[in-house]
């Protein structure tokens, strides 16, 4: 019974949805203020979500209805599950085993795959182009993201997120070694969340809404919610791995600290969104594989040497 409460209410689905919508508000507000606009009121993401829920679901006649309807739920489930493995304001996450960092990374890949499948099965030309772009982009940012996060795990000598948190809390200031990895993962997260400068899969002025072109109503609302939750999960993963300080404090203080950290990461995402133009897909691939991946490898190399030095 308690497990069900954990999964469904706190810190599971409902809490995460609210946090996701709040994250969307923070992102939109900062983005707007940086552009010299007013930005939405705090309840705007909630209003958008509720309104979308009330709209008609339209399934294109040519689309495969089962796949089309299943994909939003699939992606939502994947991101919510990923959240359960991440230590948030406590050293222990809700569920934990050795190797869960890999599981979280894989679970965070599933939304992109569902965007691809959903877009592909909706048979719209724009959606198909967007899907192909999403998958192409996946190959570009996933490699530096994996290297960046695993190099931090390497230093902690464990593949469990809770133990990574434990390691960095028992060795304060060790997390400062991973700054390069933090930057790399942040760039990769921009790609994962399909935000400017890596928003080619849903480039509005080219392919309308990419994979989501044919989605409407409840299904689209769930996809939107997935994106918001993915932003929160991605931000919490980055904070858990790269900014893991302060988890041993009083629970309330570390809860506040956790919120500050994830909204800080979201603020960095909004900043990047307002500073750059959208890159073309070929430029994005080149940038990620030519510059970001080697930099991530540098972090890996540093951590390998550090490990030899620190564990002597």
């Amino acid at each position: 019974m308690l497990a069900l409460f954990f999964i469904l209410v706190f810190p599971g689905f409902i809490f995460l949805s609210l946090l996701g919508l709040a994250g969307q508000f923070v992102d939109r507000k900062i983005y707007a203020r940086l552009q010299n606009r007013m930005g939405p009121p705090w309840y705007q993401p909630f209003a958008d979500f509720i309104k979308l829920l009330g709209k008609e679901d339209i399934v294109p006649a040519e689309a495969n209805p089962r796949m089309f309807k299943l994909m939003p739920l699939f992606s939502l489930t994947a991101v919510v599950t990923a959240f359960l493995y991440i230590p948030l304001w406590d050293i222990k996450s809700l569920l934990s085993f050795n190797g869960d960092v890999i599981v979280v990374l894989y679970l965070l890949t599933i939304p992109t795959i569902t965007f691809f499948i959903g877009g592909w099965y909706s048979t719209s030309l724009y959606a198909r182009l967007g899907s192909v772009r999403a998958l192409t982009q996946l190959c570009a940012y996933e490699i530096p993201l994996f290297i960046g996060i695993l190099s931090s795990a390497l230093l902690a000598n464990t593949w469990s997120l809770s133990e990574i948190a434990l390691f960095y809390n028992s060795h304060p200031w060790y997390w400062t070694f991973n700054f390069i990895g933090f930057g790399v993962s942040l760039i990769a997260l921009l790609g994962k969340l399909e935000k400017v400068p890596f928003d080619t899969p849903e480039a509005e002025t080219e392919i309308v809404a990419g994979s989501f072109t044919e989605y409407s109503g409840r299904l689209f609302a769930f996809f939107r919610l997935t994106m918001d939750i993915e932003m929160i999960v991605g931000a919490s993963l980055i904070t858990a791995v790269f900014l893991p300080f302060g988890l041993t404090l009083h629970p309330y203080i570390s809860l506040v600290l956790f919120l500050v950290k994830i909204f800080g990461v979201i603020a960095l995402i909004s900043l990047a969104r307002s500073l750059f133009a959208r890159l073309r897909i070929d430029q994005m691939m080149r940038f990620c594989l030519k510059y970001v991946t080697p930099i991530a490898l540098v972090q890996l190399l540093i951590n390998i040497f550090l490990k030899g030095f620190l564990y002597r």
Partner: protein
Amino acid sequence: MAEEKDFKIPIGPQHPALKEPEGFSVALKGEKILGVEIRLGYNHRGIEKACEDRTYIQDLYLIERVCGICSHSHSTCFVQAVEEIAKLEVSKRAQYIRTIIAELERIHSHFLWLGVAGHEIGFDTLLMYTWRDREIVMDLLAKLTGNRVNYSINTIGGVRRDITDSQKKEILEAVDKLEERTKYYIEIATQEVSIIKRLKGVGVLSKDDALRLGAVGPTARASGISRDTRKDDPYAAYSEVSFNVATDTNCDVFGRTVVRLKELMEAYKIIRQLVGIVPAGAIVIRAPRKIPVGEAISRYEAPRGEDVHYVKANGTEKPERVKIRAPTLANIQAVKRMLEDRFLADMPIVIAAIDPCFSCTDRAILLEEKNSSKKNIMTWQSLRSYSIDWYRKRGIDFSKLSEKIKG
């Protein structure tokens, strides 16, 4: 292979990248563009024909609405042609005021373009910033003419509103502010890496191609052609100010951006000179209601390029024929060349780079059925009766309405 060839993606007539309806059918292989088909004709409004049914003064207001952005360009171009036929000597003061408004319009148009270009490459911050600064010049135009968009300052034989000394001061203040902002945008556009990556080498139009395809305005000037009606065939007060024709040899979208930004700086220079030396005099002279028989062609450098109007007068108060050649029509041919071997992602910015104004350029098109050689050309009378029938079938009868108006 056959399937790949069939992968055609429609950009328009309704598409977020386009601000007006226009059909582009793009054949794709992956992200590469194999070919583009352009189709005009979604927004034809029959303005040229409507002009023949109205008096010259009424036409002036109609023609001002050819384009929402370069409204002053079209009305000035038309007025110049009519004045030439009627042999009216417009006062110097009126010419100066027309030129000031024309340059202010150029400023607002180029600011608008910069924002749209930013939006097309996914850089919305630039859009928000430029459109905020554009408000300065929009407000100024509203103060000077009474309207933000369709200024209605022209009239046959002069202008409708004078510029006072306090307004001159306001113009200079606004120009100072705008110049400062423009310098900032020049810095951004020429230094920000992601912008340069998206603009450099995209939509290349060589000098030869630009000449062959008859490109005009900033599109031609960015390909190294020094062609500017303000210099080549000075009208209004342009012969009395000194300015440079902004050109660039990049031949790509980046060059077009640079040319527009340089032109903004030139516009400030022109306005400063003009405001300093506006001569005294009447702003309008009396024009006859009936324009004598004759015809004239008028050229005008609109923000988007050379605008050409042809007016034929038949001695009555209505023109016999009005013909408009908006600058986009001259440039649209070049788009096809620019998009060869480019990526789909470049398409919005390449189309936007000619600063298209589709509704100004739209003409009536003739659709032929694919499998029949029968051409169905309607005369004015048959088209009119067809439209009356079309509405009558749907229960709308205008004959009663016209009786009502008469009665």
